[in-house]
């Protein structure tokens, strides 16, 4: 069993990992940049080590300093959190080569899943439905136009190494395709050091639904139901729910089984997410996130399972504490991401509380939110026996959340949660853009 763990991340996910480690009796060392010296994770951990200056490329992305810190601080494992190096195969390899346990899947699996084209082919090989697209990368305009001819518009140009909307373009004609191909490729090259792009049929307004997987090293692969992450702003998730209002028990089984089959074949271990688009009752494989996700508490709420604990047990070669048939999906859970819109000192912070409310945050009164990193500052999770009950609770809890000194999206989240279209549940990924256009959120 792991005795001492380096947390190679910051913010709420670092605190999240520290909390589970404390409950498991694991010593934590948190790696931090100069800007995060006074952060709550640093104060909460058993020890801390400064690994670089404020800019992430020199600290949280500094593989050499992170691995050295893990070794010299006497850790036997490294948790990469989310973002930063969490899906970086080279980092996972360096951690392993230094004799430490990387909390995540094997580097080769990370690498394969990081290539969106290879991941999609793996799914296709298993007969998992995928969105029709080019068979592989499109190297030039001619190849692209040929593929487009047989697929039909609208299409989406995607980066093979991508994520987060970078290198992504929607095109509706040969002309547009010819125009953006080079731009998308250059953007991909800049973001991921890999300019490979491919084409996919563009679904106009689908639901984004993903399956949470946990897998150990004894061959157990279990899914924890789905999360509906359809409410997105510029491909960034804002609100996540489980169960999804559009997923029937039959669809849940099909998606769950597809996700389990895929990750079993790939020899995946730890926590991972298989992302699908759902359109008119059908699901299409999109990609795999080879790490724990920001929205994992939603699945924890409906299953009662601590996903970070399962990651750590899997990495320790321990068997999972349950089987698929033990996983009971109960009630409804929803998460609102609270994002900062400005850096600055938090002058007042009051957390919501009471029945069915969970708060994950690294904020405290007096904390200075630095301008260097991701804008996520808190995750508010509410449960209910039903979706209406859970959403009423979320409205109530958002009303209690008080953050002063910095600007946040709390008011906008309240408006989304209260909006009749969101409440009714009939919408696709365009919901947020539509509401913004209508001025319904201002």
């Amino acid at each position, binding site marked *: 069993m792991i005795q001492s763990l380096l947390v190679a991340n910051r913010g709420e996910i670092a605190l999240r990992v520290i909390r589970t480690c404390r409950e498991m009796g694991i010593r934590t060392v948190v790696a931090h940049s*100069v800007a995060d010296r*006074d*952060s*709550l994770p*640093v*104060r*909460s*951990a*058993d*020890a*801390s*080590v*400064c*690994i*670089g*200056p404020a800019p992430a490329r020199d*600290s949280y992305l500094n593989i*050499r*300093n*992170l*691995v*050295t*810190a893990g*070794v*010299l*601080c006497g850790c036997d494992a490294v948790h990469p959190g989310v973002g930063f190096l969490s899906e970086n195969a080279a980092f996972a390899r*360096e951690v392993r080569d*230094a004799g430490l346990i990387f909390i995540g899947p094997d580097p080769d699996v990370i690498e394969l899943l990081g290539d969106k084209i290879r991941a999609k082919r793996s799914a296709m090989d298993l007969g998992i439905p995928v969105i029709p697209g080019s068979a592989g990368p499109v190297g030039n305009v001619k190849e692209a136009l040929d593929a487009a001819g047989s697929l039909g518009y609208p299409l989406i140009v995607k980066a093979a190494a991508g994520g987060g909307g970078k290198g992504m373009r929607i095109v509706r004609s040969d002309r547009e395709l010819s125009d953006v191909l080079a731009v998308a490729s250059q953007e991909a090259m800049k973001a991921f050091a890999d300019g490979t792009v491919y084409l996919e049929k563009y679904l106009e307004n689908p639901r984004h639904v993903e399956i949470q997987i946990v897998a150990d090293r004894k061959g157990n692969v279990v899914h924890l139901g789905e999360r509906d992450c359809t409410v997105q702003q510029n491909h960034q998730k804002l609100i996540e729910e489980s169960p999804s209002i559009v997923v029937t028990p039959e669809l849940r089984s099909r998606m769950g089984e597809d996700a389990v089959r895929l990750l079993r074949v790939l020899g995946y271990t730890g926590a991972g997410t298989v992302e699908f688009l759902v359109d008119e009752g059908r699901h299409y494989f999109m990609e795999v996130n080879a790490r724990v996700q920001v929205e994992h508490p939603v699945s924890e709420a409906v299953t009662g399972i601590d996903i970070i604990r399962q990651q750590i047990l899997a990495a320790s070669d321990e068997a999972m504490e349950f089987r698929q048939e033990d996983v009971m999906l109960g009630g409804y859970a929803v998460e609102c991401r609270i994002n900062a819109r400005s850096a600055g*000192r938090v002058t007042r912070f009051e957390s919501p509380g009471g029945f069915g409310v969970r708060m994950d945050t690294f904020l*405290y*009164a*007096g*904390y200075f939110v630095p301008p260097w990193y991701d804008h996520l500052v808190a995750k508010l999770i509410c449960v209910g026996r039903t979706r209406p009950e859970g959403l009423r609770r979320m409205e109530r809890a958002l009303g209690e959340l008080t953050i002063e000194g910095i600007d946040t999206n709390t008011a906008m989240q309240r408006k989304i949660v209260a909006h009749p279209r969101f409440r009714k549940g009939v919408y696709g990924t365009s919901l947020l853009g539509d509401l913004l256009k209508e001025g319904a959120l201002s």
Partner: protein
Amino acid sequence: MELKDLYALMEKFEKSGLSELGYKKDGTEISLKKPSATPSYGPPAYPTAPETHPAPSEAPQAGSGTELIRAPLVGTFYRAPAPDAPPFAEKGDMIKKGKPICILEAMKLMNEFQAEFDLEIVEILVDDGKMVEFGAPLFEVRRI
């Protein structure tokens, strides 16, 4: 007004709830002021106090006329190129720009660090073989 009167006044003022006091009489002028009570922000004090690593970068401070050379990476600090070799630098040594002063080992690589200017070693701040975090002060030096 005698000094002892001033002392008495200071004491009374300190105990009082006042924040400022001015007094002027026959060429005597007194003004007293308390620090403003700004809210004492700061992270919560957790029962488990975090361990600190050797030579945290807050302390020590450079003295007057001296400056600190800090660790540019996380690693193990070595004063000599090999266990049986003499140290690159001792306290009081004058080191020419470009000459090695220490090694930081990280991921089995020995990273040699050179003096960036002519300097005198005023103090060696880390013990040989100890881990240093990013920004940890290694040497207090004086430019020469």
